[in-house]
């Protein structure tokens, strides 16, 4: 187990290095340079000062070296090109906090509601609760997030006037983005859990438990749930990734100052340092989460050995 984790850590660093290098060199391979668009009209001296400020007067490999060193030693991604004075790291840290608040709630509700719905659908197979739940699950995968967000906004803010449309601060402003973001996870988990539970229900040990007179509730809790939740851990990784990227749309739609919001804005602004910084940060986060999920998988289910036994 320890060796496995060590190996995975090593892979993680190789992966991160590759991503960072690819992002950096690709962004610098764009014809011209990040500043040319901004600095076109500036006098020569000012322009040179700008280039020096962002370190763009050095060769690209050297720039990369400095960039890497700054990340590793002080987690410093440099300064925004479009908004001089705004530190990329500060923006990332602030944005990530906000995104995490929404993202964790969405993930929590998405996974728990999805699991419950999946179990219900399996128990009421081919009856109306099953059809209703599968309809919701299908909706979750067939409607683009921004369309769903528009509908939710319309229903709850214009028609019912329960929640504000956009903004950030109070819990009321968090409800709609969390619902929007959670829909994908609800859909994914409901579908996955349904088939997982259906598979478990037909196992012999359920029959044995029933023959021994274990109550239906205890069968569900002790046997069915335990055995069917384990495979569901595998889709946690992709679900988390979906929440990450779903946040790009959701945060923009609801005006939440999260990481996704800044990321999309930096793309539209062509703010190169911000794009590089956020991409690398997302990659770190994502790779780390995958690692945790994989290790968790081994811890939850003792039958799974992550390392090959010789």
């Amino acid at each position, binding site marked *: 187990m320890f060796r496995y984790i060590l190996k995975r850590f090593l*892979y993680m660093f190789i*992966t991160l290095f590759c991503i960072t290098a690819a992002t950096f060199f690709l962004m610098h391979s764009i014809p011209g340079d990040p500043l040319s668009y901004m600095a076109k009209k500036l006098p020569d001296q000012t322009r040179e000062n700008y280039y020096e400020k962002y370190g763009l007067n050095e060769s690209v490999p050297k720039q990369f070296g400095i960039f890497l060193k700054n990340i590793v030693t002080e987690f410093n991604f440099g300064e925004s090109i479009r908004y001089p004075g705004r530190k990329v790291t500060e923006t990332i840290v602030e944005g990530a906090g906000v995104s995490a608040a929404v993202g964790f709630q969405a993930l929590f509700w998405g996974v728990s509601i999805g699991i419950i719905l999946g179990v219900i659908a399996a128990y009421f197979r081919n009856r109306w609760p099953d059809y209703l739940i599968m309809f919701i699950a299908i909706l979750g995968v067939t409607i*683009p997030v921004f369309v769903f967000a*528009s509908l939710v906004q319309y229903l709850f803010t214009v028609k019912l006037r329960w929640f504000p449309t956009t903004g950030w601060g109070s819990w009321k402003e968090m409800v709609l983005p969390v619902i929007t973001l959670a829909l994908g996870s609800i859909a994914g988990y409901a579908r996955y859990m349904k088939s997982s539970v259906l598979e478990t229900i037909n196992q012999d040990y359920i029959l044995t438990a029933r023959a021994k007179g274990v109550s239906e509730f205890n069968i569900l809790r002790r046997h069915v749930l335990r055995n069917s939740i384990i495979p569901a851990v595998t889709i946690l990784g992709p679900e988390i990734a979906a929440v990450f990227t779903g946040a790009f749309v959701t945060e*923009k739609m609801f005006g939440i100052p999260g990481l996704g919001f800044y990321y999309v804005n930096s793309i539209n602004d062509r703010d190169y340092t911000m*794009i590089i910084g956020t991409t690398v940060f*997302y990659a770190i986060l994502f790779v780390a989460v995958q690692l945790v999920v994989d290790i968790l998988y081994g811890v939850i289910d003792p039958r799974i050995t992550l390392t090959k036994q010789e």
Partner: protein
Amino acid sequence: MEELSQEQFRIIGIEDNGTEHSARKKVGYWQDAWRRLRANKIAMAALVLLILLLLMTIIGPHLTGYSYEEMDKASKNLPPSAAHWFGTDELGRDLFTRVWQGGRVSMIIGLFSAAVSTLIGVLYGSISAFFGGIVDNIMMRIVEILISIPYLIIVILISVITDSKDLGTMILALTLTGWCGTARLIRGQILQLREQEYVLAAEALGVSPFKVILKHLIPNTLGLIIVGVTFDIPGYIFSETFLSYIGLGIQAPATSWGALASAAQANFRFYPYQLFLPSLMIALTMLSFTLLGDGLRDALDPRMRH
């Protein structure tokens, strides 16, 4: 050893009394799968819907007589009517034409991306599995690295870098790492198939590795590939929608379902039909591909036979 000649052998008689023939007509794998798919009402409905949608993206733009980029200042934001079946957009363009023109682009993106990524994925996966050992190890490590980067982030990055919004670069961006999933899937399957006797027989007869892969291994994963493609296509169409929303999609006056929906999303309270119609098409396409994929999986899974 003595040379064996034809004369030393003689036919001692074959009795053909018909016991070796099966009474019923032979049913091949594909025929059987098709029979099972036809029995699945939901999948067939999805297939019909899908064919209809595809047909409309081909002929739809030519039905009204309007061009998809033709603007008419006198008729902006009109609701659906006899003159404009789906209404018009903020520049007075006919939405019926635009929806199907956009559908054409969305479908092309979905189909091409799925085709490209499947082709790469299948070849990569089968080569990796067939040669095994260190080749497999290295090839799979590369996939692991590629797959551990959030997919949409790569797509965004490539779109930003190429900074061109034509179809080709978009498909490139979408498929750059999109093939990794397929590669893994195919590799797993071929690892099992490789141990089968017919592969051993082919190898013993001196068939070259690539021929074994192309003639014996890949055809036997075809069911899996087809199911994979039916789930990939809507995935790519969905990704395109996402790209359009964050401003990296197809450039006007060209359009796609995603571009139409995201353009309409801002004014959706006043002109709901502008959002509703392209979204409906996206949803119907996603739905029919997903249901058809489910049906195909059941029909093509050999474990489901009999």
